């Protein structure tokens, strides 16, 4: 279980300008710095908020990431609430 590493990556992206720039420009390299499972790696690469939330990522790590990606707050909530097959 590497939820800690997923959350650490998000904390770094939210709070460190260099990590944020790498997240936006070279996400596939950034994820290599963290010990992630295949599913976690995919969820980060796709910025899959719904899956990240279901994995147990703290919501206050996801909200700022949504803002970084230019998502409005209502659109972010809609992603969390969507029902997936």
């Amino acid at each position, binding site marked *: 279980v590497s939820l800690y590493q997923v959350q650490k990556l998000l904390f770094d992206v939210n709070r460190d300008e260099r990590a944020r720039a790498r997240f936006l420009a070279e996400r596939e390299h950034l994820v290599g710095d963290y010990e992630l499972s295949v599913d976690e790696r995919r969820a980060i690469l796709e910025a899959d908020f719904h899956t990240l939330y279901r994995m147990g990522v703290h919501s206050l790590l996801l909200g700022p990431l949504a803002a970084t990606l230019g998502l409005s707050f209502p659109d*972010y*909530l809609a992603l969390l609430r969507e029902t997936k097959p």
Partner: protein
Amino acid sequence: VSLVGAFAASHAPGITGRPMLPPASESEPVLRGYAELRARLEVARPDVLVVVSPEHWANFFLDHMPSFCIGLADAFWGPTDEEFVKIPRRRVQGAARHARALAEGIAEDVDLSSSEELALDHGVMVPLHLLGTTLPVIPVIVNCLAGLPAPLHRCHALGVALRRTVDRWPERVVVLGTGGLSHWPAMPESGRINRDFDQRFLDAFVEGRIEAFLRYPRELLEAEAGPGGHEIRTWITVAAAAGEGHGSVLSYQPVPAWSTGCAVASLDPR
């Protein structure tokens, strides 16, 4: 007494970040409450403002997550989340000498950590903005978030120690707690608000009965008031600092679009 005010208020980032999202019938009572608090702050004429605010991953992660952390710097910067709260980043004057004295006084009874470099997020900056104040600030960050948040009665002990310390000072001090009340922040349930919980808590807060909440079970608190309900910790610290003094709720308004029951309250220190 040197404690000349004990205030508490919600710090929802939407108040400044998404002001037009709720109907005016919901937003106006919140702004009126803050305007009344601002007037009280001006009457109180403090020299120093101690702001007790929750951690929201602005400073700490699960590698090191203190229960309580006091900011010792000459100055701080905030907000960290300016694109979200739409408040321009600015330098906030600290009160380094008093902060160190406060830290040493509190540490006689309650373990706390200290920082020379705290980042201020919406928890501090939204209230400062709405109160229109540039007073020197001593930030005290409380873990209401993750890891091992201090039990509620320890947040009360923090307030008692804070009060005991500032009572030795000639300076005029106001303590302001921020956060809450019930909310499910940035979660699928966002917008859910438990009016009944909020009202019970506010009644206890302004009637000097905060001890009714000091042993509130963690699971029950979270079920009733959401993960954001843990932020009552800062209000408990204020009630303790006020010596369980009575006071009044200046406004209470559930605002689903701002994701919380927005409350503004003031206690008369005893």
